[in-house]
């Protein structure tokens, strides 16, 4: 693209607590292009776009729009300058009609009367300009299909924001047909000279719609690539990183005995999730099996099926050779499985309870420390003190609320609690998400030790580095199906292709 850049960001830094989300991002975008911002979860794509849309403020750096430096303090200011953003989660009032939702942006501020006829005229005029069909204006938004809701959201963003349109993972909620419609609309907007920025981690759709692609990784720009993109492997490599140093796992004895076996497991999708279509894998004693994959490909469903929270629809789960179709977590816990759940604060801990109480929060521990229905607090405290020491959980006291601990210490607390029950198998889902470098390393090391003790570990993680460095074997989860298990040394080409959905053909399996 030639000419002066439409939007330029220079040296953007942003930190959330211990996490450096963006470290010196510089990019430039041109008018009349669809520019994809590609990266894994946590790469900093959304943060960067939110800064552009005035929803977040950068710690350092500069944003220029048409050569003019911006100091955005709110989304309203961004909108006034012509920048609009559409989020993954729509900001629509479901019970109100299409017309009423549009009135939020179309009505003149000083108008006191709700003039339906005039609103309809304005709405249709806008819709026409962006090539959008507005069906029934009287329909409650909650009754519309997701694709139509998204188009409404885009229309809302475009009203007044006529220069830059930012879309956050727009296809995540769409059917393939709806996605096609969206792409057609984006092309039309591009033809009108708009800059369309769109965040994604799905490679195939980049090839379809993007003129250029910028890849972010760990808060830095890996590179900007000009289309067309006949071969996506270059992008896939940029997205998941260069071949990492193969950190040799400490030698352990992996016995052939299969601990956990999944064959053709199917389950329904969670809300806004992905159904499991064909998940097969195996974990042996002393082995860490990594489940790699981009978020939203069935990770939550896999966790819930294993935890007995989601019914198994088809297929088979075997633990130590015994068939398991758990209907509640207690069955799984009793069978000797421990869990590090995906969201440590929402599912792992009772934040308002103390460290000692959270140590106790496990069926096995409760049984162990109860006599005649009464809790033996002196023994529980001694036990908790021992775990705090052994797992180096930094806490002012055993009475401190779990909420007051740092993320890394909360995660260590969960790990300590689960391991105290001496599980045969540990299922860890994104165990280091949001943790700083040291805490991440500590958790990874702990997983290695767990496996060295002869426990099996199923590590479900969207952080490929983590999976690559910890695992003995790896499978990729894509749209609810698993790839074959790969062993070391890693064939990164294949892994990144699988993660991007290449090779997962119509069958759903590579």
């Amino acid at each position: 693209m030639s000419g002066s850049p439409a939007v330029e960001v220079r040296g953007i830094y942003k930190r959330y607590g211990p996490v450096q989300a963006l470290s010196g991002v510089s990019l430039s975008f041109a008018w009349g292009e669809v520019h994809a911002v590609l990266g894994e979860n946590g790469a900093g794509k959304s943060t960067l776009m939110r800064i552009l849309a005035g929803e977040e403020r950068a710690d350092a750096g500069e944003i220029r729009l048409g050569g003019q430096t911006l100091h955005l303090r709110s989304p309203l200011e961004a909108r006034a300058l012509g920048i609009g953003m559409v989020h993954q989660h729509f900001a629509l009032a479901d019970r109100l009609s299409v017309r009423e939702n549009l009135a939020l942006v179309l009505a003149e501020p000083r108008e006191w009367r709700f003039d339906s006829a005039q609103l309809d005229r304005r709405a249709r005029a806008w819709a026409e300009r962006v090539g959008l069909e507005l069906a029934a204006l009287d329909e409650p938004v909650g009754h519309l299909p997701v694709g139509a809701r998204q188009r409404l959201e885009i229309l809302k963003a475009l009203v007044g924001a006529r220069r830059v349109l930012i879309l956050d993972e727009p296809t995540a909620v769409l059917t393939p047909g709806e996605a096609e419609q969206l792409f057609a609309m984006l092309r039309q907007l591009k033809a009108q000279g708009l800059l369309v920025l769109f965040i994604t981690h799905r490679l195939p759709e980049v090839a379809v719609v993007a003129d250029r692609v910028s890849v972010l990784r760990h808060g830095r720009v890996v590179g900007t690539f000009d289309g067309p993109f006949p071969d996506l492997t270059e992008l896939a490599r940029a997205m998941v990183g260069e071949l990492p140093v193969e950190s040799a796992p400490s030698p352990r004895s992996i016995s052939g005995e299969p601990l956990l076996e999944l064959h053709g497991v199917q389950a329904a999708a969670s809300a806004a999730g992905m159904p499991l279509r064909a998940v097969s894998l195996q974990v042996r004693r002393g082995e860490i099996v990594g489940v790699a994959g981009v978020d939203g490909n069935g990770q939550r469903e896999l966790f819930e099926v294993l935890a007995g929270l989601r019914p198994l629809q088809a297929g088979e789960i075997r633990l130590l050779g015994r068939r398991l179709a758990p209907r509640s977590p207690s069955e799984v816990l009793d069978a000797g499985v421990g869990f590090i759940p995906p969201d440590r604060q929402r599912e792992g801990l009772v934040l308002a309870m103390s460290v000692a109480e959270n140590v106790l929060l496990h069926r096995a521990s409760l049984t162990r420390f109860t006599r005649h229905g009464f809790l033996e607090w002196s023994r529980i405290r001694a036990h908790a003190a021992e775990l705090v020491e052994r797992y180096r959980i930094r806490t002012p006291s055993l009475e401190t609320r779990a909420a007051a601990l740092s993320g890394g210490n909360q995660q260590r607390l969960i790990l300590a609690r689960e391991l105290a029950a001496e599980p045969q198998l540990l299922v860890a889902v994104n165990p280091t998400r949001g943790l700083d470098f040291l805490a991440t390393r500590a958790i990874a090391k702990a997983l290695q030790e767990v496996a060295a003790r002869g426990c099996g570990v199923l590590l479900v993680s969207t952080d490929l580095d983590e999976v690559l460095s910890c695992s003995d074997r790896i499978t990729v989860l894509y749209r609810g199906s698993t790839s074959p298990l790969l062993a070391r040394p890693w064939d990164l080409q294949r892994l990144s292709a699988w993660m991007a959905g290449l090779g997962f053909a119509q069958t759903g399996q590579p």
Partner: protein
Amino acid sequence: MNMMRQVAREVFPSLAAVALALLVGAAFVWASGVSPALAFAALVQGAFGSLDSLSEVAVKTCPLLLTGLAIIAAFRAGVWNIGAEGQLLAGAAAIAFAGRYLAPELPALLALPAGLALAAASGAAWAALAALLKVQRNVNEVISTIMLNFVAAALLSYLVQGPLMEAGARYPQSDALPAHMLLPRLAPYRVHAGLGLAVLAAVALQIFLFRTRRGFELRAVGGNPAAAVLAGIDARRTVLFAFALSGALAGLAGGVEVAGVTRRIYERFSPGWGFTAIAVGLLARIHPLGALLSAAFFGALDAGSNSMQRVAGVSAVLVQVIQGCVILFLAAFETYRRRAANRA
């Protein structure tokens, strides 16, 4: 030391809320042209001025404490039972029923315990309606328990005008309980053994919540149901149990009030204890032992308000203003604390 600081941190919001609420109350008194000092002096005199008034404070404290404990048992499990009032009425109706139909059949010594047990069971059953609706059909318990309060009041009204109405009575009211079914009083005062029962219940609930496995499970479900379920705790069963326990305590409050004070039931039997109970529970920071203090505080306000009205000419309704303000300030502190925690 650490323990002390923790207790202080828990108690401070309550003390501050009471102080601010009293300040607001004083402002209202002042605005109505009465000296706040005079009004509060009359209130204190009315509550603590004589043994007789102290006894009245104890009498008012008793139902507030038991219903306050009911609120605590539910709130600890994350169950928003706003139906203590209806459950209390169910308990009161049950003991009136026992007095009329069971007492003649039972040995004298068993009549009172049986009556109180039936009151507790009825309260639990009334609560179980809302509990089952919540667990089975996911009906919001705030709405169902509030609605069931009206049903209970209407049912009680029917009972005292129909099946339980005293023969030849001029007003709709039930028979008086037989003398051997009454809770012993500390003559010549009205204070009765129900207070001892309520204090025992407070201690027992404190032990249950903090020293037993089931109590821990109840608190875990209240603190984070998802984490509790993942730890292998049966959340549905726990919610049902907490609801039943809460209803039983409220039902017991109704039974004790009949057996200790009124001897019979009639329309508008409760001045709204089950609602004040929410203030009692929240002011106690949902600690059973704290409820001993908060129930006594509201009991004293209630007992002193009549004397305030008589001496200073300030309407006894002021007490409700203070009650409401206590809840508002506590809620405000809680929101503030949560925001501060989120920011950190």
